[in-house]
């Protein structure tokens, strides 16, 4: 099997020390391959968002190892971590986190320009990413002129622009209505199928159902994981997709 996009090995996270310490995560082993979306579900406070920040190198775990594309994050200094995030990891948040004074295209190309890409190459990659989420015709629009669903699609384009292949999404449909949320999940799924990989933190089962695997966290531990199997009986027998 090829090098996983993301690997968490015995990851633990503890806040505080001694009797006052709180364990947010404990003994987490998790791999994400290219073309794979893993949904993480669990009650509030179960450690879902902590897991995401550790996976993206925003927080260092108190135990265990994280590798992104085969690189051990513990070996990187702050500058190296920032570079790894710009090049390899795309975050998608509930509230989109687009820069309001930049156009859709400028938002998408921002991580590339911060990484030293030349303008023409960055713009070309930005258009490719926007095209992939069917929004290239709105490249010059500002976030305020886009609907919530369109803004989230821009955020997905930003998450996969250039060489970025690891998408870390935290409740990406939380601020969207049901139909728009479904459209965003469809776009996210398409990017995964095109060779990205990622983690989707969600409390919504309907959106977790777009993942290949669903992992449940309870009190900082993985208690169950389900993998997407070969199609079986999709509706009742006689259904046209059976």
């Amino acid at each position: 099997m090829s090098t996983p996009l993301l690997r968490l090995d015995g990851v633990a996270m503890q806040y505080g020390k001694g009797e006052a310490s709180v364990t947010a995560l404990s003994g987490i082993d998790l791999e994400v391959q290219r073309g794979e979306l893993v949904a993480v579900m669990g009650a509030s406070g179960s450690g879902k968002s902590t897991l995401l920040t550790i996976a993206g190198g925003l927080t260092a775990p108190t135990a265990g190892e994280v590798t992104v594309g085969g690189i051990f994050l513990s070996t990187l200094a702050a500058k190296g971590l920032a570079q790894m995030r710009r090049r390899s990891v795309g975050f998608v948040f509930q509230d989109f986190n687009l820069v309001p004074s930049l156009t859709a295209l400028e938002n998408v190309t921002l991580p590339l320009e911060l990484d030293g890409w030349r303008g023409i190459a960055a713009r070309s990659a930005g258009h490719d990413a926007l095209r992939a989420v069917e929004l290239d015709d709105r490249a010059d629009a500002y976030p305020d002129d886009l609907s919530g669903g369109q803004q989230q699609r821009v955020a997905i384009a930003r998450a996969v622009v250039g060489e970025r292949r690891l998408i870390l999404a935290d409740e990406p449909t939380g601020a969207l209505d049901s139909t728009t949320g479904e459209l965003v999940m469809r776009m996210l799924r398409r990017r995964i199928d095109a060779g990205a990989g990622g983690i989707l933190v969600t409390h919504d089962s309907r959106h977790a159902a777009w993942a290949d695997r669903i992992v449940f966290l309870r009190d900082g531990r993985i208690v169950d994981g389900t993998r997407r199997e070969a199609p079986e009986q999709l509706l009742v027998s006689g259904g046209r997709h059976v």
Partner: protein
Amino acid sequence: MSVRQSLLAILDQGPCYGYQLRAEFDRRTGGTWPLNVGQIYQTLDRLERDGLVAKGESDREGRAYYEITDAGREAVASWLSSPVERQTAARDELAIKLAVAATLPGVDLASVIQVQRTAALALLRDLTRTKDSIEEPESPEDLAYLLLVDAQIFQVDGELRWLDHSEGRLARAAAAGVARPLPINTEVPKRGRPAKAVQS
């Protein structure tokens, strides 16, 4: 019963013979509720008995066409304007299972819930993939089929939300000491109706 009413509503579009009616029902429901032609004719017989359809002339191939009556049209209008009555939670197999399990000693209720949750999520993923195969409906048949898939998705989603809610309720009840086994009541239940007080 929705099959009977659906067949009647289709006949409101024009006369049909049995096989034709089955085909019309199939294309409107994506084949998700397969009916045999015997069921179709049985339903047509009952509709005819109730005065909602009338058996018309047969064609040269011997196919008998059924036509809706005025009373049948009224029945269709009434069906479309009335809510569908749902099964109550008290008769729901899963709700009964969890309610009874909560009164038994030595049952890991979290595990009961997780087993159900895993199965429901697997079904939800299959249904989502089915939906993913039709990006945008391109025909009335696609649209009808997607409506049925969405209905199943939302039903399973509702079950999952109920499981989450029940997990929280059970945890709070356990903390309050309310979630505990219910032993068999050894007092013999009295048979018959309770005796009424004698009135003077």
